[in-house]
């Protein structure tokens, strides 16, 4: 029995997930629900198959006893701290179309509630990032809000209170493009929404005053997710909007006065580092601790040093972001405390 989910990410990318698992909590199991469509997509850009599979390892370079690499192909058997183990195959690792085959086991409650979440976090999201990048879009790790058809985005590391700022801005009539990621059109300087786990964020906005949920709220959230009712879909900005400003969140430590923040090259490097550092960050830290995917990219680059992953981060994104930072059409600012961030809007 195979369950199929089809997704359309605006008019840019199509994805299909085929899984043999039965998840007790579909809303947690499928983080891309915002993009789900009913139609059966022919020729999706990325296909993810979850279930037993037979890899073709003939003619593969072997790295570290566990990574099997060929041109545009990757396979590994991996584990996460004794809490999960899996086999992952990616055909189209650097050039589309992409087929991801995955078979894994998670120890504990996640196997029952959301067994497909592991591969989507570990591999699907990074492959979406690559596919978007090769089409001229950056899956930026940032929060984004919009009003009057203009977008403001907030770039920052984990814990820089992006979500708090966004939640506050909703009160002033802003709509949300994403609380963690947004899609930036690198040619037209427009922004598209990229909500992950939309209902969870809607819940936080509607019922909790803070980002971190209390136990009571967590239980209530689980209950509401099972109900499959709408929570607050109207907070999302579904149309693409023009980028007006980019704010870097760096809560300045008063003693570090000689920190040059407005240096344009430094701003470029910060945006890239922010995204790459995010490749290591997992949405399921209780299972994964850290994402292994950057090591997969490094292993592939060890065999094929000139590949699209490296090209994306070292050439394509650097060139495009440099242009955005230099242009007068976008305002760049650095925000040094939350109150000021909120009042800037």
């Amino acid at each position, binding site marked *: 029995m195979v369950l199929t989910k089809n997704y359309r990410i605006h008019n840019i990318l199509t994805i299909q997930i085929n899984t043999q698992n039965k998840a007790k909590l579909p809303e947690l199991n499928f983080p891309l629900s915002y993009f789900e469509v009913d139609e059966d997509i022919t020729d999706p850009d990325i296909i993810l198959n979850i279930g037993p599979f037979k890899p073709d390892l003939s003619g593969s*370079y072997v*790295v570290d006893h566990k990574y099997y690499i060929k041109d545009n192909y990757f396979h590994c058997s991996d*584990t996460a701290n004794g809490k999960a183990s899996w086999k992952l195959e990616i055909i189209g690792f650097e050039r589309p179309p992409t087929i991801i085959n995955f078979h894994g086991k998670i120890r504990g409650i996640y196997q029952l509630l959301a067994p497909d979440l592991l591969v989507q976090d570990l591999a699907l999201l990074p492959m979406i990032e690559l596919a978007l990048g090769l089409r001229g879009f950056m899956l930026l790790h940032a929060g984004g809000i919009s009003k009057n058809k203009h977008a403001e985005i907030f770039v920052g590391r984990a*814990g820089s209170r992006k979500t708090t700022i966004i939640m506050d801005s909703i009160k002033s009539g802003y709509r949300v493009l994403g609380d963690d990621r947004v899609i930036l059109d690198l040619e037209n300087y427009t922004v598209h929404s990229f909500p992950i786990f939309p209902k969870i964020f809607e819940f936080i906005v509607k019922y909790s005053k803070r980002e971190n949920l209390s136990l009571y709220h967590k239980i209530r959230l689980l209950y509401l997710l099972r109900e499959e009712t709408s929570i607050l879909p109207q907070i999302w900005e579904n149309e693409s909007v023009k980028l007006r400003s980019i704010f870097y969140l760096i809560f300045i430590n008063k003693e570090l006065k000689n920190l040059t923040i407005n240096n344009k090259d430094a701003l470029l490097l910060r945006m890239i580092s922010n995204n790459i550092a995010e490749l*290591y960050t997992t949405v399921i830290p209780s299972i994964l601790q850290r994402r292994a995917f950057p090591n997969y990219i*490094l292993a592939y680059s*060890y065999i094929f040093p000139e590949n699209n992953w490296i090209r994306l981060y070292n050439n394509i994104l650097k060139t495009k972001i440099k242009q955005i930072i230099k242009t007068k059409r976008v305002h760049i600012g650095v925000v040094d405390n939350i109150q000021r961030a909120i009042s800037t809007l």
Partner: protein
Amino acid sequence: MVKKSYYSVQNILNFAVIDKTSIINRLMDKFEVHYANFKVEDEPGNLDMIFEIGKFKPKLSNTYNVGDGKYYFGQDYLYVPHEQCKGAKWRFEIEGIEASTTYIRISCNPLGRIFIVGNVIDFLIHFKLTEMGYPMIHASSLCKNNKAILFSTRGGGGKTTIALHLVEHGFGFLGDNFTILHKSTALSFPTSLSIFTYNLAPIIKNNLTQKQKIELQIKHLIYRMTKGYAKFFTKLNPRRVINNMCEKAKIEKMFIIFPRTDVIEPKIIETKKEEILDHLVYNQMLEFPLFNRYIYEYSYFFPDSPLSRHWETYKRRLNENLDNSTKYYKAIVPTRINIYTIEKLLEVINDGAN
């Protein structure tokens, strides 16, 4: 019971290790054995690094905090409060990354003693040596007639196996894990050999004590019982089994070795320096996966710092310290190194050698 020891790497990099922990914590210590060949009796004139192992209070006064306490970064400062891998737990701070003496404080549980060598101390040695113009590569090195031959591979590529077989063929031994490069010369970095049942070359097998043989079998059993989760290596000082040790030699040939499935006949192709540099850089990046993450996180706050620019610097240093007087080869070999592969390599090594 504080234990102080001093180490010197080729008189280039000097460091001290001050161990303030209990005997129980030191039970699984790999450091002493691993760096036995660098130990010196007297405190060196200038210490580039001082490692303090034991409980410490981090200096968080001027730092940025990532992920609500996941990392703390400051000017020339780094603190990682929680790091773990398979039951090993450790935390550490680096104070004065760019200073002439860098302080590194590490606190860990007994299992952590095994992991801090590869995940913290080795990286800092590599980082400092790179800054000084002596980049290290992940390669074994041998020498004959004052000329060095290097074999760079990832795990499973047979660095140690090839090195030990070549020793039996009369080559001198510089190291089986890392080799220091400087102006086309290989400098030895002889850390202990990591022995497991799968890489027992004859020279080791014939020189093991009964105790070591039993130890190997027990560790192999543990490996099988935990389905590969618990892999305990046996550390062996190469000086115990190898008489012909070498300090340095001009690099005549460098092989980058790629195991591949479906290969029966090894294929060895001569190539250029420019073609192998990236392989060397990614190999080194794969050696330090945890530190790569710290570097990207740190780069958001201090994009211009030496730590943030490290890998660019490393590639540049490799380029500066290798030249075309060395011959470079790519070797595509079977996934299990066998005698035939070694003979094929020897053919190329002896071809045109003086």
